[in-house]
């Protein structure tokens, strides 16, 4: 199976491990990732209001490129996934946005939402299958209590993202089970870490991140996994009251599949 792959700005820089282990694990699973040529930043955050047109154009361009390649569009970063998937839904449901975006972009062919946007974890579930994945695990996380941190962007709004039940998700727990670990269910797994507010009000980001980590710790977690570089930053740098290790889910995946090289450190070290 071949996907058009959209890494996004942060996976090329501060979250290289999220990207490297995603690529390496895909290769081990027989999934071919073709990086979109000259992709542009998604904007980092979905513009919630309906009259913002320009801020969604780069996403439409990316979606149109995947359509041209005839592939589904694969994302790893939660924020990219949220922006791209919601912009795609807007192109389908909002005729005014569709009209303006297409007029502005002047693509070879009008883009009408043909591309399917797939998150890496959805690909693991639907294209590989968690049962098949389990068979390929060589280093299971036996006895490890792992807390999945969904955050906001993979899940909400549920009617558009359709990633999982937005209030009681289970897909990341299923992934943890496939990797041989024991998932930890905790109340703050889908509550906000503070996001970009760390630049505006650091104490608010610290408060939020500490709440998430305290919640995971209280339920006995040995570690937390995330798909989002900004959640990673907040939990590690602003979660000042706790020292629970935080890993990208791709790092655990690569480790379990035996494609993480000996001595390779963690992002939060």
């Amino acid at each position, binding site marked *: 199976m071949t996907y058009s792959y959209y890494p996004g700005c942060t996976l090329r820089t501060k979250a290289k491990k999220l990207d490297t282990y995603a690529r390496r694990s895909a290769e081990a699973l027989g999934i071919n990732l073709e990086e979109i040529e000259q992709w542009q930043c998604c904007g980092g955050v979905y*513009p919630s209001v309906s009259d913002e047109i320009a801020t969604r154009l780069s996403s439409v361009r990316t979606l149109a490129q995947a359509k041209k390649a005839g592939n589904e569009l694969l994302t790893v970063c939660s924020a990219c996934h949220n922006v791209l998937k919601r912009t795609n839904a807007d192109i389908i449901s909002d005729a005014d946005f569709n009209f303006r975006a297409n007029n502005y972009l002047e693509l070879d062919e009008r883009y009408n939402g043909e591309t399917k946007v797939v998150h890496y974890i959805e690909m693991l579930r639907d294209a590989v299958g968690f049962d098949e994945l389990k068979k390929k695990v060589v280093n299971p996380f036996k006895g490890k209590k792992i807390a999945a941190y969904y955050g906001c962007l993979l899940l909400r709004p549920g009617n558009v993202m359709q990633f999982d039940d937005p209030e009681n998700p289970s897909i990341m727990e299923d992934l943890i089970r496939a990797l041989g670990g024991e998932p930890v269910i905790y109340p703050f797994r889908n509550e906000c870490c503070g996001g970009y507010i760390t630049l505006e009000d650091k104490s608010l980001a610290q408060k939020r991140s500490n709440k998430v980590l305290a919640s995971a710790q209280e339920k006995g977690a040995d570690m937390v996994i995330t798909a989002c570089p900004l959640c990673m930053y907040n939990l590690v740098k602003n979660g000042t009251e706790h020292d629970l290790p935080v890993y990208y889910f791709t790092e655990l995946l690569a480790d379990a599949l035996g494609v993480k090289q000996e001595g390779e450190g963690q992002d939060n070290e």
Partner: protein
Amino acid sequence: MNNEQLRDEIIRISGTNPSKCMKCGKCSGTCPAYEEMEYHPHQFVSMVQKGDIEPLLESKSIFKCLTCFACVERCPRSVEPGKLVEAVRLMLIRQKGANHFDAEDLPCLVDDDLPQQAVVSAFRKYSK
């Protein structure tokens, strides 16, 4: 603009309808920035409805929203108050010279681990 025009403009920008609100308070109950806000999400809804936009434009509350979409997801009437907070913020920062965040502010806020995603998002939220 008078209050009525301000209200209509916020409704136009946001694309949402505050008059559908049934005042259940779920938005404020679930808001992770509730304590930091002078005006809470449910108050944004009723104040926009009344055209009482000026105090919102002057309040720091519009910069406290985390865009976590909790109020958007959990609103039983699809009013989605986060969109109103966003619309008021945009009404302010779309004015000339009203950027809340400048590139010059950045160097002292950035550390070695801060992801680009945070910088891009902050510029999207606080500047035009």
